[in-house]
């Protein structure tokens, strides 16, 4: 139950470099008028970043493209996508995803 000083240093440093990108655009950009083209660009950021994260999670192993090594995750992605499209429920999607992976690992 102790805090070592070099660990504390790492935690404080890491928290500062995490905080800055989180708050800076919100603090600066919300003060100024953003031009139309930039607004249009920003409107595509959510879809782009979420798709990139999904791609990374499903298709990369340790940050490298692995020629579809994650069989179970890829199969489980089908019912997960379907649930999201049909129900638009985040909780339902997460539950179907987890249960699909659990069942696939049991039987494959």
């Amino acid at each position, binding site marked *: 139950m102790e805090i070592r000083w070099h660990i504390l240093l790492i*935690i404080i440093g890491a928290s500062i470099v995490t905080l800055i990108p989180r708050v800076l655009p919100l*603090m600066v950009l919300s003060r100024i008028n*953003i031009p139309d083209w930039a607004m249009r660009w920003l409107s595509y950021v959510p879809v*782009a970043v979420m798709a990139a994260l999904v*791609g990374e999670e499903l298709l990369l192993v340790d940050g490298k*493209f692995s020629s579809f090594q994650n069989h179970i995750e890829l199969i489980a992605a089908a019912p997960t996508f379907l649930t999201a499209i049909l129900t638009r429920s985040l*909780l339902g999607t997460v539950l179907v995803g987890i249960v699909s992976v659990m069942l696939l690992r049991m039987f494959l």
Partner: protein
Amino acid sequence: MQENIQLHKQDVNIREDSFLQGVKDCIPTLLGYLSIGFAAGVVGNTSGLSIVEITLMSLLIYAGSAQFIVSGMIASHGSPASIILTVFIVNLRHLLLSAALSPYFSRLTPVKTLLIGSLLTDETFGVAINKTTNKNHLSEKWMHGLNITAYLNWIVATLAGAFLGQWITNPEKFGLDFALPAMFIGLLVIQIVSRGKFTKDIVVAISAVVIVLGTSFFLSGSMAIIAATVIAATLGMVVEKWK
């Protein structure tokens, strides 16, 4: 009668924007946070971090990917400077999330936006941006409700992971590691379905995935995410300008 309807309308409006509604809108993400936070606690524990250190990390850093990296690099005796630099690069994508939310908080003072931004995560961003459909601003109270619920849940989850980590040998057996990808799938699909820019969004999404795969050969995972986001969003902007 007229007055009654008016009052009722106002009531609904208040509830939509309230702190409590923010708490409720956070509920679907809790399971994902719980499993990832739990895993982060377990990893911290196996890296030799004390429970106080793990808790401090969740309180101050509050970012899953960063906490996994810190634990891993401490275990492999990385230097403080290299650990902090890696965390910085991994979390650069928050710049884009924060920028994308900024138009919806244009009425707030810098101190208030600081409070909102400091608890911004991939998941709370996803919930918030899905809330912006047909709106030009978001409620500050609602955002705090969402953020604080997610934050407390994360701290509880990492603490539980740190305590129970010693007895859990295989969390993957229960599919819990799939909570995060499943949550991103849900946020992506809900975003595309609710925006009504179906074709353009699909083009942007597919390009983002292709760019992540392509750049992963020479960029680290987090830089690949940033490159894919910037290029795919630019593509979306250009395609929209053409039509």
